[in-house]
């Protein structure tokens, strides 16, 4: 039962997923970059990455399906493939969020620039680092690192809420800035969702590595 | 055609490797060699014919024996007709011949041998395969196998020197005392007798029956034994429901083989049966068998009718063994039908 090829295939699967994750993460970073420097060409770049991510999502799904059908994976291998299937969906959605952000940036661009009292790049770097950490946990099969992602999510939520309050107050005070503020508010929500997806990825990593379904303790608890 | 093909392949192999369908670009040494080989259709045919001829030889031999015996005994057959088989007279001087005492002697001594040998050999086989410790098992089975190889003349010699005196002094008196009333064990007691022939025949066929029985019992799969044991059977019950039924076919075969050997056995019997062409109820009386009379009188037969009568006895013996063999095959066939799927 030295299923060498099967385990190579699992490695390939992981590799593929990581490549895709890299693209998605880059898309998030680029979209924030676009936000910072107000550069439409970067928005284009981000939006063009979507088909690639979608294609890779399908390929990974198909590969996972083939492995399930052909290799009778068991125990840790099976959990790995299931984790990949779920992480795959999350990464694809991270990519979607990047595209959404790019869309918002495009809208913002069409409006007069205003200075808003919120630190989107900080929130973004927080979310992005959650994603990176979750992926590192996946690479290293490190459940502890994955756990740390779960705690970061609370901070991201708080930051998002703070931004929401700030912006809704701002709109109230400065109706003229409403369109810009609304867009930024939505960008913040997108980034918050990116954090959520990172959290999901971390949960899946924990499930794969330790077999414990972390949602048991966490979701019901919160 | 095949030769041509081989040639073509060789050519292809050397000159245009990819021209033929199979001789592709990489003919290795092995491939090139094989492609050059013929398809052996002729040698196969020749071989088969040779084997067939040998097989037919056996048939021809048996047929020849039968025809030869029938031809050589034609004079006696013409002279005595069917009555030869049931008349008791055996008088070379008056040229009056009947085979009845010989037929009787042959059958009785053989049956007697079976009666003694079958239970003993089967229980020996059971002991050896199912009960006895492994080291002992080997030496015991070797011993019985050796016995099968001892020539009958040696048995005869031993019987003449050891068995007959032993019977006369120890066993026969005892038998006469205890079982005399049946009429089978009445005096006078010469030692050489039907009983002595039966006993020595039994000893001679014992190893045959028991080694065949042993062999078939050891081919009964272990899983059959385990099936019975797992149902909670004792060892004896295990033997009874798993071993013996599975082996019965082989045991029957072994018994028939033993009978065949007993019927035709010549020398040992000749040496101990007493060679008197009479039919007596008592087993202690001397008798005569077909084989012994041939051994004793064939070279002394002076007249052609005498010789012809002797050969007719040979013919009868031959036919009896054919009948026994046919019966054996019939028996085995009918048993196999029931358990044929076991063989599959």
């Amino acid at each position, binding site marked *: *039962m030295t299923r060498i090829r099967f385990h190579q295939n699992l490695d390939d699967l992981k590799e593929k997923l990581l490549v895709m994750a890299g693209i998605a993460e880059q898309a998030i970073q680029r979209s924030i970059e676009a936000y910072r420097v107000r550069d439409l060409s970067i928005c284009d770049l981000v939006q063009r990455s979507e088909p690639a991510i979608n294609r890779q999502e399908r390929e990974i799904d198909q590969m996972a399906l083939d492995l399930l059908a052909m290799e009778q994976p068991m*125990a*840790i*291998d099976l959990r790995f493939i299931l984790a990949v299937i779920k992480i795959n969906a999350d990464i694809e959605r991270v990519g979607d969020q990047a595209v959404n952000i790019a869309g918002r940036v495009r809208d913002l661009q069409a409006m007069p620039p205003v200075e808003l009292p919120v630190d989107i790049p900080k929130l973004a770097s927080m979310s992005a680092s959650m994603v990176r950490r979750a992926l590192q946990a996946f690479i290293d099969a490190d459940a502890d690192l994955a756990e740390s992602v779960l705690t970061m999510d609370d901070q991201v939520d708080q930051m998002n809420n703070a931004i929401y309050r700030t912006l809704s107050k701002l709109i109230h005070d400065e109706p003229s800035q409403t369109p810009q503020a609304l867009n930024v508010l939505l960008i913040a929500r997108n980034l918050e969702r990116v954090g959520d997806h990172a959290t999901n990825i971390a949960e899946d990593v924990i499930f794969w590595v330790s077999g414990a379904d972390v949602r048991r303790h966490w979701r019901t608890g919160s | 055609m095949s030769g041509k093909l081989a040639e073509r392949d060789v050519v292809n192999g050397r000159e245009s490797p990819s021209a033929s369908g199979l001789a592709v670009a990489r003919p290795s040494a092995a491939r090139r060699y094989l492609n050059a080989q013929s398809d052996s259709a002729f040698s196969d045919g020749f071989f088969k014919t040779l084997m067939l001829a040998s097989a037919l030889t056996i048939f021809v031999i048996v047929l020849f024996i039968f025809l030869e015996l029938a031809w050589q005994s034609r004079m006696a057959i013409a002279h005595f007709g069917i009555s030869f088989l049931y008349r008791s007279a055996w008088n070379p001087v008056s040229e009056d011949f009947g085979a009845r005492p010989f037929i009787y002697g042959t059958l009785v001594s053989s049956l007697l041998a079976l009666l003694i040998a079958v239970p003993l050999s089967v229980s020996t086989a059971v002991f050896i395969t199912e009960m006895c410790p492994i080291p002992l098992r080997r030496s015991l089975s070797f011993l019985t196998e050796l016995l099968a190889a001892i020539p009958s003349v040696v048995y005869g010699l031993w019987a003449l020197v050891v068995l007959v005196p032993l019977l006369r002094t120890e066993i026969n008196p005892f038998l006469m005392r205890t079982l005399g009333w049946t009429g089978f064990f009445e005096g006078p007691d010469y030692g050489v007798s039907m009983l002595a022939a039966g006993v020595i025949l039994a000893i001679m066929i014992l190893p045959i029956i028991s080694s065949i029985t042993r062999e078939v019992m050891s081919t009964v799969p272990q899983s*059959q034994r*385990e*099936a019975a044991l797992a149902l909670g*059977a004792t060892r004896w019950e295990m033997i009874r429901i798993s071993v013996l039924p599975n082996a*019965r076919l082989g045991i029957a075969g072994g018994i028939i083989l033993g009978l065949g050997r007993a019927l035709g056995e010549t020398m040992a019997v000749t040496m101990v049966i007493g060679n008197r062409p009479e039919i007596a109820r008592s087993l202690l009386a001397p008798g005569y068998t077909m084989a012994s009379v041939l051994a004793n009188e064939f070279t002394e037969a002076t007249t052609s009718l005498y010789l012809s009568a002797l050969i007719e006895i040979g013919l009868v013996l031959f036919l009896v063994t054919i009948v026994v063999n046919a019966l054996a095959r019939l028996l085995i066939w009918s048993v196999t039908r029931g358990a044929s799927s076991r063989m599959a």
Partner: protein
Amino acid sequence: MGVGIEVKDLNAWYGSTHTLRDIHLNIPANHATALIGPSGCGKSTFVRCLNRMHETNPIARVTGTVKIGDLDIYNDVSPVVIRRRIGMVFQRPNPFPTMSIYDNVASGLRLNGFRNRQALDEIVERSLRRAALWDEVKDDLKRKSGASISGGQQQRLCIARTLAVDPEVLLMDEPASALDPISTAKIEDLIFQLKSEYTIVIVTHNMQQAARVAEKTGFFLNGQLVEFDATTKIFTNPSDKRTEDYITGRFG
């Protein structure tokens, strides 16, 4: 109804090879328990120790305690009695080829001197029904020999034969490994139905088979019991690294 089996400190040898080492195990009553492990790890030896078949091998030896319910099988009773209470089904179907189907099923009872014809008829029918074989053979009960039916049917016949003596425990040593997939599925369904009434221990090389029929699974390695746990646990998330390696094919 079945009874639980309690194994303590079981050690077994073939000659001087130590085949089983310090096995501790509680097999639950009225459930199916699967034993898996690489070839030669001692699974067969283990189940053969449970009904004292191990000792039929002249070079075999065993120490430790095996309790079936309250009964210490190595001290309280004779092997003949214990084997009747603990039925066994083997890897290759082994019906008695010289007996009819009916006689095969009846053989266990007949051995015990059971002679009541009518009761026997009933028991044979019930056992064959339980073994899901009745409909296929009812017309040939006394006409066909035990060896003249298909391999899958033969194996069910062997199960029926074992059921007829109404054992409390059913031991099965790779009962389907010699059968085609359809017969295998039938045997598995059967085990699944029987386990409410019997304590079933099944050795198998096929992990999916273990997964399908058994609630509990034990993993043997080199004569030791590495892990014993709920089947779903073993197959989705075993505790021991060695189990995980075996299950996922990283072994050897």
